[in-house]
């Protein structure tokens, strides 16, 4: 639940891999170790049109009534034994700002230095675009679990005419089971994938 921009195309979790959640997660997950039992890879293309100088928020939770809506894309698991590992690729000339808890995730430390699409200077801060994570060579990664604070991607069209963005979500749906740290070998602990929470970046 802390979106990452990687320098290469990430490898997906596979059966047998071990993951560890950081302490800020909800108590069912916090500081616990899990082993991946089964994985399934599901591709989900989400095209959206954004008006000139307009924004559109894409929320990872489900809309009221379930399914998928224009602003809700249902990328949180329903099972408490599932993790979604989501790799995101972009196609189109629209900037994407990650947000959690109604605030921007990528910001600098000085007061007020955070993305603001209405400000001519701050709109170029803390966003991703298709050059960072190309559609077919995705490098943005996110993890989600049931009932978590849903990540939101704010799409902003900085151009003078309507633009289309296509987001490709490769959702690696993982069935996991908790394992005690004492049952893991030293190598498994060292190689485990650490899944961070966005709170970790507030200091």
């Amino acid at each position, binding site marked *: 639940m802390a979106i990452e921009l990687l320098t290469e195309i990430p490898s997906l979790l596979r059966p047998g891999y071990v993951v560890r959640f950081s302490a800020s997660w909800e108590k069912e997950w916090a500081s616990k170790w899990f082993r991946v039992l089964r994985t399934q890879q599901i591709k989900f293309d989400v*095209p959206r*049109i954004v008006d000139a100088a307009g924004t559109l928020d894409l929320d990872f939770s489900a809309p009221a009534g379930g399914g998928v809506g224009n602003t809700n894309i249902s990328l949180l698991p329903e099972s408490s034994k599932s993790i979604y590992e989501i790799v995101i690729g972009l196609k189109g000339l629209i900037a994407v700002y990650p947000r959690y808890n109604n605030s921007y995730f990528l910001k600098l430390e000085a007061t007020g230095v955070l993305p603001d699409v209405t400000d001519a200077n701050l709109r170029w801060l803390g966003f991703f675009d298709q050059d960072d994570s190309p559609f077919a060579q995705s490098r943005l990664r996110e993890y989600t679990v049931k009932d978590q604070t849903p990540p939101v991607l704010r799409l902003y069209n900085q151009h003078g*005419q309507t633009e289309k963005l*296509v987001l490709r979500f490769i959702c690696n749906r993982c069935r996991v089971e908790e394992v005690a740290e004492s049952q893991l070998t030293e190598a498994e602990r060292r190689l485990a994938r650490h899944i961070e929470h966005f709170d970790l970046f507030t200091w």
Partner: protein
Amino acid sequence: MTAEILPKRAYRTVLASGNTQMFTVPANMLGRIDKVELDSRPLSGQPYPLTIQLLDAFAPTGGSSTTVIRKQIQVTPGERVDIDEWAGIQIMGGCWGNTNVSGPIVSVVVALE
């Protein structure tokens, strides 16, 4: 029209008179105009004012806006002209073209990305 090799995953459509629906770019694709050609050999007589208009209705993606690109050009019967400045224009959804003359005068090639 002669056989030709189009860019990878491209459509060519010739506008008839009136409204011609040309392309529905799939929702998970973007399209770009590769070239627009006028072939006025079917015309005869004096130089002819030709109006071409493209409308992009974003139909497959649920958008509601419509972008219109419009051009008026004087063509002399028998000549062939490319409208270079339209190359690269993005097509996001359903696309309609429209001209004021009958016959296979205007053809548009759109490549998918």
